[in-house]
């Protein structure tokens, strides 16, 4: 063969490869989000009513609304232009009003639509008739991948791919329907024991779940955590294989953790138990806030949260879990100009001059000796802070460190620990400077919320 024909052949091969690959790629339809077979009436604060029906039978969203109210015996008063004046005995007011909120396919964002309600309900992933205050959004109705969370049948074989999800399942009293967990799930003990004895399968690690092991448990539904990329991929694979899977939100603050609990409860039809957990959590947090926002509690506290007692430590910026919890209790994160965990330069510490320092670490055990050693050996920059001078350096270690880094249903316990550290004067119980496995004994309000 001469050079010319070889060049032609080479080009032909390359082109053939590209064309075949493009053909293979174009054959694949991207997984589409499901459409809800019904509509939601949302009274706000995660109090919702799911109305299941074939929405294609309704030419407009207004018809769907009429049906939803009629079939549930709810009163409905509408304006001339179709806007909702009153629904189920609750009037639209200046501060909060009924309205139609929708989510478009492929999105997770709520969109508010105005009356008249003449839209075709099949255009949306889900429609929600929500009683929403100014600036608020309706109760979460789709998971992180944009799939509706309503309309699932009761689930009896559930797989959890993350420790937080396992805790959520346990908190809604569903641990007896778990058939698979990730290997990082270490709470509650009953699940750990069941996994050790083999009655619950371990389906891989938190970071890399195994499709084969998950399918081996014959699950009804798999809960995955969107903060792990591998989980999002796994969710697609499972859905392709016909297994219901739900991708939870990266729950790094109170609201999204509560959303996740609500989603899990709704999907497996344990709404009541989920509502109880959510209600209890808010009750504890409100009680704590009442204590904290009193003159006795001593005003706003500047706090620094660190992962280690090093010269230039990793510290919490604004949007970490523990920072978002601590900000509920009249405190200011001195490093809130950054987001996430940041490697801070040492001279920022005396400059920031926190009133309290919280060190979250698994490296220490909760003994006074360890604490004294750590406290006296802190770098000079740390000793140049108000916190050190006042002796307000707290160490959260052992089980307590796990607790405050787990975005699960034990949020109320985290909140109580943090509130007690930030405002010791507001509470009767004193919390020690180093807190380990025995943290529950200091909890007066949330002691029962360990869900184990």
């Amino acid at each position, binding site marked *: 063969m001469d050079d010319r024909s070889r060049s032609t052949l080479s080009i032909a091969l390359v082109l053939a490869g590209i064309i075949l690959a493009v053909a293979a790629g174009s054959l694949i339809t991207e997984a589409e989000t499901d459409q809800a077979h019904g509509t939601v009436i949302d009274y706000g604060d995660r109090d919702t009513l799911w109305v299941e029906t074939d929405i294609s039978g309704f030419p407009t969203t207004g018809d769907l609304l009429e049906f939803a109210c009629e079939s549930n015996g709810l009163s409905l008063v509408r304006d001339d232009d179709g806007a909702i004046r009153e629904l189920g005995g609750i009037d639209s007011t200046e501060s909060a009003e009924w309205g139609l909120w929708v989510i478009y396919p492929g999105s997770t964002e709520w969109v508010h639509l105005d009356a008249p309600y003449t839209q075709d309900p099949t255009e949306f992933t889900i429609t929600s008739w929500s009683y929403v205050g100014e600036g608020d959004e309706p109760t979460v109705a789709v998971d992180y991948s944009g799939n509706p969370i309503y309309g699932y049948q009761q689930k009896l074989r559930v797989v959890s791919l993350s420790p937080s999800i396992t805790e959520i399942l346990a908190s809604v009293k569903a641990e007896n329907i778990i058939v698979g967990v990730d290997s990082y799930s270490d709470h509650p003990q009953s699940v750990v024991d069941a996994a050790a004895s083999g009655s619950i399968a371990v389906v891989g690690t938190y970071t890399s779940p*195994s499709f084969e092991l998950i399918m081996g448990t014959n699950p009804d539904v798999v809960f995955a955590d969107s903060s792990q990329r591998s989980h999002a991929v796994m969710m697609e694979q499972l859905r392709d294989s016909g297994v219901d899977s739900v991708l939870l939100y990266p729950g790094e603050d109170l609201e999204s953790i509560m959303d996740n609990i609500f989603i899990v409860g709704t999907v497996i039809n344990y709404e009541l138990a989920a509502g109880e957990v959510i209600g209890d959590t808010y009750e504890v947090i409100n009680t704590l806030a009442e204590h904290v926002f009193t003159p006795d509690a001593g005003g706003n506290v500047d706090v620094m949260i660190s992962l280690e007692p090093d010269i230039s430590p990793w510290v919490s910026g604004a949007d970490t879990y523990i920072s978002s919890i601590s900000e509920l209790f009249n405190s200011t994160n001195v490093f809130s100009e950054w987001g996430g965990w940041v490697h801070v330069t040492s001279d920022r510490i005396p400059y920031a001059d926190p009133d309290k320092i919280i060190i979250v670490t698994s490296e220490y055990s909760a003994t006074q000796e360890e604490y004294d050693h750590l406290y006296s050996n802190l770098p000079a920059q740390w000793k140049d802070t108000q916190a050190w001078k006042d002796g307000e350096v707290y160490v959260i270690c052992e089980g307590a460190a796990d607790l405050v880094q787990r975005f699960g249903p034990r949020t109320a316990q985290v909140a109580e620990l943090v509130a007690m550290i930030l405002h010791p004067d507001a509470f009767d119980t004193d919390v020690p400077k180093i807190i380990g496995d025995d943290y529950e004994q200091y909890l007066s309000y949330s002691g029962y919320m360990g869900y184990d």
Partner: protein
Amino acid sequence: MNGKILATLAAVAVLLVTAVAVPMPAEASGDTDVLYDGGNGDTAWVRAEGATVGDVISDALVGLGMEFTVEAGTIHVDGVSSKTVGSGDTGGSLTGSGSTGATVTSEWHVFSWNGSSWEEVADTGAASDGSPLAIAFYPEGIRPVVTPDEPYAMTMSRGDSANTASFEALYSSDADYEVTWTDSGTAHATTLYAGGYIFQKYGIDSEGNARLVCIDADAGPDAGYVWEFEFMSGSNYESSTPLIVGDHIYVATMTGYIYRIPLYEGPGEDYGNVTSIGGASYADARPVESFLTSFEVGTTYDAGFSSMVFDSGAIYVTHSNGMVYCFDTDLGLIWSQMLGGSTYLVSPTVVDGYGFVGALDGHLYVLDAASGDMLADQMIAQYRYQAKLYGGVGQVAVIPNASGTYSLFFTFSDGLGMSQLNCGIAVYEFSPEGNVLIERYRNEDIGDLGRYVIPVSVGSFSGIYFVASPDSGTNLYRLDASGNLEVMTEGLAEIHAAPVLVNGAYLYLVSYSSAEPIYQIDLEGGIVGTASCPSGIRNFNMIPVLVLGDTVFGGTDSGIYRFDGAFPAYVAPTFEQGQPLILIIAEMLAAVLVALAAVYAILRYRGHEKPFAYLRSAFIHYLYGEDQSHNTRNRHRLKFVVIVGAVLTVLAFTLCLCIGSTSVLNPVEAYSALFSAISKGGVGLDSLETTVYVSRLPRTIAALAVGIGLSVAGCVYQAIIRNPLVDPYIMGVSSGAGVAAIAVIAFDFTFFGMFSSHSIFLTAITACIGGLIAFGCTMLLAEKAGGSAINYVLSGVVVGLAFSAVQTIMLTMAGNKLSNALSWLYGSFAEVTWSQVGIVVFLSVFLSLVPLIWAKELNLVLLGEDQARQMGLDVRRFNRWMLILASVLTSVCVAFCGVIGFVGLVIPHLCRMLLGSDHRMVLPASICFGGVMLMLADLLARTGYYGMELPVGAITTVIGIPVFAYLLIKRGRMYDG
């Protein structure tokens, strides 16, 4: 089958389903076949004689232990002439308890067979002409389903209204057992049989529709469905069984409808033949409401109707809304009764005018089947889990006692189905006098129990058989009314389906997993035979088999099947599941040894003294023989390499399909699952097929393709750059791809909105583009610097460092997305799905073929630029194009599975050490061995540490280094890169 069976039937009395109340038939005599049909699924054939129709029937019933009299034209059997279900109107409705005022009256009717249908005989005094007769207890206008042509029928979920699941069947054939046909669908409802047709309800397909299909039992589904009725259902678990009465089949849905369809005609055009509750047409049908009361106890897995039973002209069914309904055969409501909790799935048991039904409040209810009045209500079991009460009572098995009372056997639980925490078994005695329920026996320490027990009264034993799973294994037990519990069979596989009894002699138990057997067990507990589910529809088995002697129908979550012939005799199992890995390896070794022995024998036979020494010298001569020309030697070597490479590729590919973290299959199983999955187009797979086709195959193919791509790219780079230390990432491709991938993973970069943030291609395409951008930078720099190979290396290293630095900074700022980013950088095939395989395979394989065409030029380049130029090659241009090709190849590989080191560096070296530096051999060898190595590495990555994905790049290094070190020691001295 029909003719043969009927002929034999004529000789013996064959009951299809025997109510416990009816004694076994006496010896038959005479020459007229008589059918007794109790109107509740309980039928029997008897041979009798007599002058008139009345005489023949009287003789027949004597044989069944019953008395037949005719007074003033009204037939009495055992003194009963008619029964009326229904009473005065007390405002009963679909949503509230009470009677509607509707009634239905059943009487005894006599029929004569005219050769094609049953014709009612008005005068029992007429002379008998020897044609088959029937006496049946039905309302006016309903004829028996069973006919002389089709003497078998299975008309309701457990055979009769007493839920005895007891078949009388004939074992006649010595034929070898075989699977006659299969049909796919989700079978959670019991298979029904009438008139030579199978009626099966299937759960939803991908469009959300469930179906009732009618299949010719002999011809099977290949001949097409006789008819099909599709209905919308939201439920995977269409688990309630339809009901056949007279010429109609009734199907109740989990969405709350009941439809009535002509049995043989089917639903007709636009479902014009279908009617629903209240006689409504199909179009006007309305469902029963799912929720009427909010029960504070119990929970159902699904909503909708239970299976139905038919007795004395009335249909009895419960609903998860807590109601028990009684309908007439036109689906007019006769009465309804609200219970204290949801009922679910299991049909009520109706015996002697009493309805026994359990609910998820943990109560057992006894109703008057005629009026719906509540006669007794007994709390059996309730469990409190945290805030909520749970309970459940399984299907009731009833055994009448001589004293006029009834022994009731049933399991109870917390009603949580497969996840139940507490359960047990109980015996109660129901006394109609005063309607009292008394506990006689209770056992909560017997392990996991299902909802079904089976009443058995054979010989001196009268009680139930049931399956339970104590701490380990599953056992068959029997229990009598006095509470004597015996273990009959130990060590069965997990069983969820209800047991059935055949000929009062054999129990059939279906294992939950279709890898486990279907057992035929005698009443002493001995396993007589076992059969296994056909491979095409293997899945979980929830429903009992339907046994018509040597013909058996069964179903799984993937479909239904028919067996013919006797079950193969039982052989105790040797392996739990699949075959252990060690056995597979041993089998392979044995095969190799046998082959070697055969070769040895043949060569000895042909007169070689030392066959292996001869082979060795012949082999070495073939590859290295000095007397052959250089080209011949090379051709021999190439042939050898390609053959060995191909064999190894096939072996590695097979291993990858066979071995995984859940099960080890033998190659035959693996390939048969693979082919059946392919033939299904990847849709509706059973669990084995899913494992092989969805979870193992795509990543194996991807590993093969990426292995080929990286090896070839490495080979090309090493040749062009003339440096043995070069790997495919030398041009900065991996760093560029890494920066792009991390931008997507950690910082939600969506390529300026071109892709949705959930797109599966986002990371891959962005990474590929990132890699190419990095290479573009390298090329720009190198060309500016003069474009020599060394310019390329230096530019590549510098650009790579720059991108790595950006990558490191991005990682530092990635916060909690760090682990996601790192897992991409480590490289893994864990996330490869079918969607991506096509792209990576086509691109990498086709691009890998191009350098083969230019192997001679690559050899020239190795000699140095000047010499190559003298040989007439435009070195610069050639190098540039080859580098672009190799970089695109590398980018594609990196894009889908991250950075996998070592393969591209070491495989070309291994090939050169083995074969010399001629690219006409090195390139094909790299293609063969690169794929093999990466497939094996991926196999280790997914199985090495239980359930955890190890980074495949690290694995390649770990397994590659010893091989490389060995070769380096052996041949390093003569190897110059």
